[in-house]
């Protein structure tokens, strides 16, 4: 530690913060992909960020402009293990993925990153193509602090009916997203 001058650590910190600020959302998305519930994503993200800082010396890329996402790849390795340890702590809760599946999912996310990213970007345009009321519905159930049960109660609908509608709308969105990236790919 004595070899590391204090000001280096401060420089590192500035670099780290700017990288994290830039890529926070991508890391968060990666974490969310490995967990079926969005509730714990913030917690795991926080633990991942702390661990990234603790291990930042091992990150060798230092933000190479030709490799803008190498930080994400490096951080995602840490994120993967943070997801695993979070799941392990809750292994008694049977609604968490097994370790083997988390690894398989993480590998698939890496392999399919570009496709998933293009699909994600197409979602906004596809939401715009839905009739206004359907768009409102989809957005409202995914709004912060809202759930399908809440929306069902507020609109006086049966949750089961709402799920049916939602699943149909999501299916529609997935098809739209797929169409859009197919068109983009062929252009």
């Amino acid at each position: 530690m004595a070899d590391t001058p204090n000001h280096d650590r401060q420089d590192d910190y500035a670099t780290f913060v700017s990288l994290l600020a830039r890529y926070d959302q991508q890391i968060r998305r990666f974490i969310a992909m490995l967990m079926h519930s969005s509730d714990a994503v913030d917690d795991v993200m926080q633990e991942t960020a702390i661990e990234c800082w603790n291990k930042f010396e091992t990150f060798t890329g230092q933000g190479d402009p030709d490799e803008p996402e190498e930080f994400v790849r490096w951080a995602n390795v840490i994120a993967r293990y943070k997801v695993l340890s979070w799941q392990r702590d809750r292994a008694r809760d049977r609604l968490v993925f097994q370790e083997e599946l988390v690894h398989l999912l993480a590998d698939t996310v890496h392999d399919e990153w570009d496709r998933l990213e293009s699909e994600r970007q197409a979602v906004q345009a596809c939401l715009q193509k839905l009739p206004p009321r359907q768009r409102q519905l989809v957005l409202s159930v995914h709004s912060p602090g809202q759930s399908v049960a809440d929306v069902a109660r507020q609109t006086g609908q049966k949750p089961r009916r709402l799920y049916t509608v939602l699943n149909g709308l999501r299916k529609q969105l997935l098809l739209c997203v797929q169409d859009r990236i197919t068109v983009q790919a062929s252009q």
Partner: protein
Amino acid sequence: MTAAPHELIDAALDGRISEADFARLQDAMLHDAELRLAYLRANNLHQAIREQAAFLSAASQSASDDNGSFLPTPALPPSATAIRWPVKLALATGLAFCIASLAYFAGWNASTSNRLTGNSTETLLSGHATLRRSLNINWTDQQSPFQDGQVLPQGKLQFAAGVAEIDFFCGASVVIEGPADLDIVSDWEVTLHTGRLRASVPPAARGFKVNAAETQIVDLGTEFAVVVSDRNADVQVIDGEIRIDGGQLDGTHLLTGQRRSLTHDQPTDSALESILTTKQLQLKYQDALASHWLRWQSATQSIAARDDLIAYYPITSCIQGRTVQNVGPTGSLNDGQIVGPVQVDDGRFPALSSALDFSSPGSRVRTRIDGEFSAFSFTCWVNINRLDNLYNALFMADGYENGEPHWQIRNDGSLMFSVMVDDTQEIKVNTRFEDKPVTDAGLHRVYFTKPVWNDSMRDRWIHLAAVYDLDGRKVSQYVNGELVGEETIPQKFVPQTLRIGGAELGNWGQPFRNSPWFAVRNLNGKIDDMLLLDSALDAQAIRALYQLGKPLGYE
């Protein structure tokens, strides 16, 4: 009774999955790379929507005092300004209704009951099962088609493709995949000649029998599958126990997981478990319904943007409190107002769309549409319980003044469309209630079709259209996209102009001036999707509207 793994993904992401289903999903994902990708794509979509919602929520919170929710505006109680129809009118129509009710019970109740106790009602009640749900059914030429919810009588049921779920009155339910040929024998028994069948038998229905290949399979509890083709017949117990009577296995009991051929030494069909379960069929059906409905939803958008639109009431998603919204460009100016005991019920896409039920007398939706028009094309979907009244209203201008339309159904099932030509003239009309002709106000002509509805069509959605082509001097009427009546407008009955003014859906606002007899005109049934156009659609355009809006399972 379990869903396929990919159908569990949304449930997992919505946080409403059971532990057992979660375990199944996880297990399947471990072994199936495609399923993993499907899960990731769905999760990706959920996240993207969530991000978008959070972004918009934050934006709307900072931009205004909005509560950040994207819920449709909550239904407000009708304000004083929203009630365009004064109380005295409601009282007036109420009075007319009382008088007319009296006439109804005193005058022609007897003849109506005679008419309604015909064979069709008896036939409907003499079945053994109901067709609970069907998907992509392709009935054979010999088979008269059944629609979902209909009672199935004793006898043959044949379809070339598709899946049907049948609930027997004993409580057993079977899913049958086509091509299928079966005989419904009784509440407790079915004979399978060809097809793939899965029977679920609750304790109350223990003893339910499936006959196949000269063998009787008697259920002793829960679930089994039978597959019969022209070469072989196999049976497998999925859960529980069955007994086999007759044939080469006479007296054999089979338990969970056991499979036998009824015709050969070895079972040949290896896909018995793949027959859809009730739950799987339900999910598939809901998916098909949802995408069908979504197609319709986007069609309504383009209809609402038509140049020739007078008003359009899709009903679904357009009921705000007691207001039935017009989605055409004139907007709230032509909104409808619910008056009386109108019920909002399932429309022609069950659980997804809504319709208005006018079956309680006094039910009505009032609107006002000003302006002059050059033609009328009216279309709507109706689901009629009974033609209780002599005339049963679809869309009726109040009073009946010059240029105003009346669209209704006579109690013999004939469609009627008319426009008042000269309301100052008096004409004599023969009615079945009075010996001598009744004086009727105004010169008008009613264009009737042959009867197109009878009691056997209860609970079925039908598409009706009437086209009043003033320039072409022609009135055309359609049922389910097919022309059922066409007449020339005689010169004497050509009105100067067309207008609507005050009008009602599902009832009539004001009785004939000198005769209260026909004032009870509420439609005993449901109306879904009322479209009023200022143009004369041709047969092709009407057929296109039918095709766009038809319920799942319609040809």
